C-alpha cells in the first residue's frame, strides 16, 4: 500500500528510491569488493576472507535481532550491554563447562529481553527509552559481576572460536544458521506475519485481534538472546572476558547494518538478506580503511556518514 501511494505522487523517483533502498547495499558491497581487489594487497586470500567472515559473525547475529526490533517499529539499544553481560556470565560459569556457560549467557540475554519487552509491550514505554535504561544498567551489571578483564581458557571455547567445519569457521556457520532461522521466522511463520503487521500499524494490528503484546515481548526476547549468542562467540574468539569494552557501540553497527540493508526505521518490513549485506558492508568498510592505514577514527566518521546516507536514501519511502 505504501508503494501504491508513493507511486501516484512521483513514480520515477519513488521507483529509484525503492530500488536504491532495497539493493543499494549490494551495490555498496560490490563497489567495496572491487576497490579492495584492485587496490588492497593480499585481499584475495582465503585467510583474509576467513578473518573478515569471523569478524562479521557477531555483528550479523546482533543485527538479526535488531532487524526484528526495527521491523516492529521499535529499536533495541541494549544489545551491546547484553554482549557485555554475556561475556561476564561466560567468565562466571565456564567452570561448569562451556554448555552451562552458553546456557547461562542465553538465559541472561532472554532475561534482559524480557525486561525490555515487558516495558515496551505491557507498560507502553517507548522502545528507545526502555532499551536505553537497560543499556546503562546492563553494562553496569556486567561490570559488577566481573570487574575487569579475565582470560577465558577452555579447549571447547577455543575450538568454537577458531575451529572450522569443512573450512567454514564455526562462528560463521552459526551466524548463517541463525540467518536462515530468522529469515524463515519472518517469512513463513505466523509470528513473522504478526510482527510485520504490528510494525506497519499497531492500532490496526490490535483491532485485527493480533496478540500485539506477546509478539512484541518475543521480539525483544529474541533480540536479547541473539545478542547473548553474539557475545558468547566474541568471547570465544577473543579468549577473554572483557565486559568494559566488548559490544561497545555494537548497537550502532547493528542499526547501521539493518538500515543500510533496506529495513525502514518506520517498521512493517524486515529485510534479512539486506541485513546480511549491511553487516558485510560495515565490516568491509572498516577493513578497507584499516588496510589503507587510516586510523580507526576515520572508521567512525565513515560509519556516521554511511548511516546518514542510508537513512537519507530511505526517507522518501517512509510510511504515509
Amino acid at each position, binding site marked *: 500500500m505504501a508503494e501504491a501511494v508513493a507511486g501516484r*505522487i512521483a513514480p520515477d523517483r519513488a521507483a529509484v528510491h525503492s530500488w536504491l533502498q532495497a539493493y543499494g547495499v549490494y551495490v555498496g558491497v560490490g563497489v567495496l569488493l572491487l576497490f579492495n581487489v584492485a587496490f588492497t594487497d593480499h585481499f584475495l586470500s582465503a585467510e583474509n576472507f576467513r578473518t573478515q567472515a569471523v569478524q562479521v559473525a557477531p555483528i550479523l547475529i546482533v543485527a538479526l535481532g535488531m532487524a526484528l526490533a526495527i521491523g516492529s*517499529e*521499535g*529499536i533495541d539499544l541494549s544489545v551491546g550491554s547484553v554482549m557485555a553481560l554475556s561475556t561476564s556470565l561466560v567468565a562466571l560459569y565456564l567452570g561448569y563447562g562451556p554448555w552451562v556457560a552458553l546456557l547461562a549467557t542465553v538465559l541472561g540475554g532472554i532475561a534482559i529481553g524480557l*525486561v525490555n519487552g515487558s*516495558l515496551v509491550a505491557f*507498560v*507502553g*514505554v*517507548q*522502545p*528507545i*527509552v*526502555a532499551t*536505553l*535504561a*537497560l*543499556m*546503562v*544498567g*546492563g*553494562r*553496569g*551489571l*556486567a*561490570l*559488577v559481576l566481573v*570487574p575487569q578483564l579475565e582470560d577465558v581458557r577452555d579447549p571447547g571455547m577455543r575450538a568454537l572460536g577458531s575451529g572450522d567445519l569443512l573450512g567454514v569457521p564455526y562462528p560463521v556457520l552459526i551466524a548463517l544458521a541463525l540467518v536462515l532461522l530468522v529469515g524463515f521466522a519472518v517469512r513463513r511463520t505466523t509470528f513473522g506475519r504478526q510482527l510485520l503487521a504490528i510494525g506497519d500499524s499497531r492500532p490496526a494490528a490490535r483491532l485485527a485481534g493480533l496478540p500485539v503484546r506477546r509478539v512484541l515481548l518475543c521480539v525483544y526476547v529474541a533480540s536479547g538472546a541473539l545478542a547473548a549468542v553474539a557475545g558468547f562467540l566474541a568471547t570465544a574468539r577473543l579468549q577473554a572476558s572483557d565486559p568494559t569494552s566488548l559490544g561497545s*557501540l555494537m548497537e*550502532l553497527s547493528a*542499526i547501521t547494518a539493518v*538500515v543500510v540493508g533496506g529495513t*525502514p*526505521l*518506520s*517498521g512493517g518490513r524486515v529485510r534479512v538478506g539486506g541485513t546480511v549485506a549491511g553487516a558485510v558492508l560495515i565490516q568491509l568498510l572498516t577493513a578497507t580503511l584499516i588496510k589503507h592505514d587510516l*586510523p*580507526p*577514527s*576515520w*572508521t*567512525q*566518521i565513515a*560509519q*556516521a*556518514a554511511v*548511516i*546518514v546516507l542510508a*537513512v*537519507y536514501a530511505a*526517507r522518501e519511502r*517512509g*510510511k*504515509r
Partner: protein
Amino acid sequence: MSAANTRHRGAGSQEAAGSQEGAGPAGRAPRNRTADRAGPAGPGSGGIRAERLSALAQQHGALVALLLTVLIASLSFDSFAGAGNLENIAVSSAFLAIVALGMTFVIVSGGIDLSVGSVFALGGVLAAWGSRYGPVVALLLALSVCGTIGLINGLLIARARLAPFIVTLAAMLGARGLMLNITEEGTSTFLLAKDSVFAELGRGKLLGVGIPVWITLVLFVLGGLLLRRTRFGQHVYAVGGNEDAASLMGASVTRTKVSVYVLSGLLAGLAGALNAAWLASGVTILGQGMELEAISAVVIGGTLLSGGMGYVSGSLAGVLLLKVIQNVINQIGSLDSAYQQVVSGAFLIVVVVVQTWLGRRRKARLTSPG
C-alpha cells in the same frame, strides 16, 4: 520566515503528517499532549484533584526525591553534608546540568540528542587546544564547532526529515571520530597553560562557590525564561505537542527544531569547555554515556519523552538527584562504581514506568466523557 512557513505549509498534509508517523520510535507519542500541557501550566484545566496531583508528582517528583535523598544521606553519612563533599557534588553536577539543559529543549520539542556525550568531549579537547591562544579563542572554537554539529543535526532532522535518534547517533559517532582524529587517536592530551586565564573559568571561585556552578545557575535561569516566557519557548512546546498544529498556528517548525539542536550542541560544547578548564586538560575519554545521564536527568525531572511538556527546573533537580545518588554510592566504600550504572538504569526504568502510568491515567481522564 514567511518563506519557510509557506514552504512548510505547502508540503502540507502529505509530507508533514507522513513524516510524523514515519519518524520511527523517537517520534511516537500519545495524542493528548497539548491537553496534558495545560494541566501544570496553570488554572486553565479543570479542577479535578487526582489530575492535579499526578501533574504535581510529574513536575515536582524529582525535587521531593532529591530532598528526601539528601536528608537520608546527611543523616546516614557524616561526611555527606560537609562543605567539601557538597562542593564536589555541585561542581560535578554543573557540567552534566548544562548538557541536560540543552537536552530538555530537544526533548520538549519531541526529539532526542544522543550526540551530546561526544560533543562534550570534543568541546573539551578543542577548548584545551585553543586555550593557548587565550580564553576567548578557546571558548569560541569549542562553541563554533559544537554549534555546527548541532546545526547539521538540526538540518538533517528538520529539513531532511530524518529520525532524530538516528541522526544524533551518527553525530555521536562522527563527533567522537573527529575528536580522536584531532588528538591522534586519543594519544595526545592537550594541557592548559599553567597560569592561563581560561583555567580560571573552571577553577576560579566567586563568593566561595565555583565559577562553573555560577555559570550553570545563570544558564538555568536564562533557559527557564527562554522556555517559559518567550515566543520561541512556546514554539518549542507547540512543536513537541503537535507538529501540524504548531505549523498551522504559525510556528516555524523547521526553524524551531534547528534551533533546539543548535542550542543543545552549543551547551554540550560549553559544558565540555568548562570541564576542560576545570581539569586543566582536554581529556579524550570523557563524555561516554553522558547522553544517557542527561536523558535520565531530564526524564526524571518530569519532562515527557514524547515531547510537548517539560520543565527546566525539573532537569536541574534530576541532575542533582543522579549525582547525589552516585555520591552516596561512592560513600558506601564497598560498592564499586559499576553499581552507579546499575542504579541509574534501574532508577530510569522506575521513573519511566511511573511517568507512563501517570500519563496514561491522565489521558484516560481527559478522553473519557464528562
